[in-house]
């Protein structure tokens, strides 16, 4: 039998039993579409979180004062470790390392910002010129903090986009003097609007030199130090180096915590990927159910069409030709259902994407491929039993069935 004839014969059968064809297509399509939509959501969540973390900076190590690890109870309880402050001198000490590309000490506080009659409470971030590079931020206009000695308290500030609009409206702010707390600062730059980056919204910030922040808040202690390692490979060595250096400077106490961003990132990445696979796997079960539906309906079809099978045998169709005919029906059904499901899944993604534009939705190719693969495989596997049953039918009984 020619391939084209097999296809047209299958087509005529499927066309005749439209309800049953439609139901199987629907079952398959729902299965495939749910795999696609669920894995897309999972992947989108993963990409979103990873993207958020990457916007913090690459090859980043974060040095936080105080120890968050517990290493055995007794000594620390006796000594009662009080964390020493991280100071600008600590930060400077860290720059003298081959593993460190650049560092940015960070102080954070809150102060009232005023210009003319407008007054507003806003977070104030004290740092250095290197922050811009470490965090991959962009300037809207003007320039960032001046380079040079990090302990120079220059009275300049950079406004976040939203804060700038609230204070100045459409007026230009560059070169104007504003008041932060009880000091005056000259506006030298405006930050470009960035998306939210975890913890801080750049849009609301005022950024001033770290030394100015120290005198503004009257405190030498840093909130944290951001360290950018020279490359990805030296991150563990850089971490060790930072711990050693600070230990030396803090009278032998390891009273800081170094978080490597890559560690957090890869943990999240793994968790979310596992989650995606899990929901995808649950959705795949629905395909298995659809496969059983195919088998069920094909079995009914075999008993409905015994006369036809008997006739085909009488006309000279050998058993394996009948298997081919019935299998091609199962394959056609599952393939068409899968294609329909891919279309529904993509449409679903578009609709979800319309309501949640922030989610980087997009069906991962491996999910589409495996959904279609599983659909066709289960369809074929479950079509095999009815096909064999059809082939084994006794033609005499089949023909006298009417």
């Amino acid at each position, binding site marked *: *039998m*020619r391939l*084209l*004839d097999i296809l047209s*014969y299958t087509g*005529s*059968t499927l*066309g*005749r039993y439209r309800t049953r064809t439609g139901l199987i297509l629907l079952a398959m399509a729902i299965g495939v579409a749910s795999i696609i939509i669920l894995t897309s959501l999972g992947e989108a969540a993963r990409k979103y979180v990873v993207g958020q973390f990457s916007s913090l900076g690459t090859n980043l190590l974060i040095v936080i004062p105080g120890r968050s690890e517990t290493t055995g109870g007794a000594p620390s309880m006796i000594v009662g470790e009080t964390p020493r402050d991280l100071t600008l001198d600590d930060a400077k000490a860290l720059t003298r390392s081959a593993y460190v590309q650049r560092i940015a000490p960070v102080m954070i506080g809150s102060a009232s910002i005023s210009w003319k009659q407008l007054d507003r409470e806003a977070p104030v971030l004290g740092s250095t010129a290197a922050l811009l590079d470490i965090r991959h931020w962009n300037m809207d206009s003007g320039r960032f903090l001046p380079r040079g000695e990090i302990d120079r308290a220059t009275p300049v500030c950079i406004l976040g986009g939203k804060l700038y609009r609230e204070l100045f409206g459409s007026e230009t702010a560059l070169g104007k003097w504003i008041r932060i707390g009880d000091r005056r600062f000259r506006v030298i730059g405006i930050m470009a609007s960035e998306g939210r980056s975890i913890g801080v919204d750049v849009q609301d910030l005022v950024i001033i030199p770290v030394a100015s922040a120290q005198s503004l808040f009257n405190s030498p202690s840093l909130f944290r130090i951001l360290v950018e390692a020279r490359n990805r490979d030296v991150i563990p060595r850089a971490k060790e180096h930072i711990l050693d250096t600070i230990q030396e400077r803090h009278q032998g106490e390891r009273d800081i915590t170094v978080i490597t961003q890559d560690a957090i990132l890869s943990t999240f990445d793994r968790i979310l990927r596992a989650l995606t696979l899990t929901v995808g796997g649950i959705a795949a079960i629905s395909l298995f159910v659809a496969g059983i539906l195919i088998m069920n309906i094909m079995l009914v079809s075999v008993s409905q069409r015994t*006369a*036809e099978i*008997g*006739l*085909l*045998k*009488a*006309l*000279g*169709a*050998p*058993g*394996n*030709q009948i298997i081919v005919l019935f299998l091609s029906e199962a394959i056609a059904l599952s393939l068409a259902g899968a294609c329909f499901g891919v279309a529904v899944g993509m449409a679903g993604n578009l609709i979800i994407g319309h309501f949640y534009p922030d989610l980087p939705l997009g069906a991962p190719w491996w999910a589409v491929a495996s959904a279609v693969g599983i659909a066709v495989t289960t369809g074929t596997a479950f079509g095999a039993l009815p096909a064999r049953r059809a082939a084994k039918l006794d*033609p*005499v009984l089949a*023909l*006298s069935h*009417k």
Partner: protein
Amino acid sequence: MIQLKGIHRTFQVGDQEVHALNEINLNVSPGEYLSIMGPSGSGKSTLLNLLGLLDRPTSGTYLLNNQDVTVLSDFEQAKTRRNKIGFVFQFFQLLPRLTAQENVELPMMLDGIAPNERSQRATEVLDAMGLSDRRHHRPDQLSGGQRQRVAIARATIMEPAILLADEPTGNLDSKSGLDVIKILEQLNNKGLTLIIVTHDPEIGVRAKRHIHMIDGKIVESRTDTIAETKDSLPS
């Protein structure tokens, strides 16, 4: 052409063994016109199915063109059915979703013949059956007689040597039944071996050789020397 020797066919019904065919010996020469008659349950349909390779004997040998066909594989038997044997059934057995022409093309499709040749041959045969204007009708748009003629066209499209008809008029009124019989007889006149199973004596006696079966045995086999009906046939 057909040689049956000591054919037995038994079925197991519950714990009882039913002897559907009991020691059948039969020879059929090419071009013969044979009718098998007998009450229902006498084994005539079983014999026909066996001749058509739809069933295998429990014991005995069946030589078709001097070849033992009972030992053939499923594939070879199917091939023999496709090329050497045509079937005509009481209930026509046309596929309802296919048109008359497509039904006729079905055996050629199973054989892998190219679509062009298929439609040409099917058109010719349907023309010969007087169904040129019914070619693209589905079975439910055809009368019983027309359906049976489509079925005969399908049975003969592969130019088989033997045509097996199981109660071909059983589901037709007497007029269209007679038409169908005449078509079958015409085919027989052209050399086709025709074997008809019927319990209608009027149909049965038209054959040149009648076989009577009772309880799975051939009780009477008679060959007419004069075919009185032949004169009335249009030729």
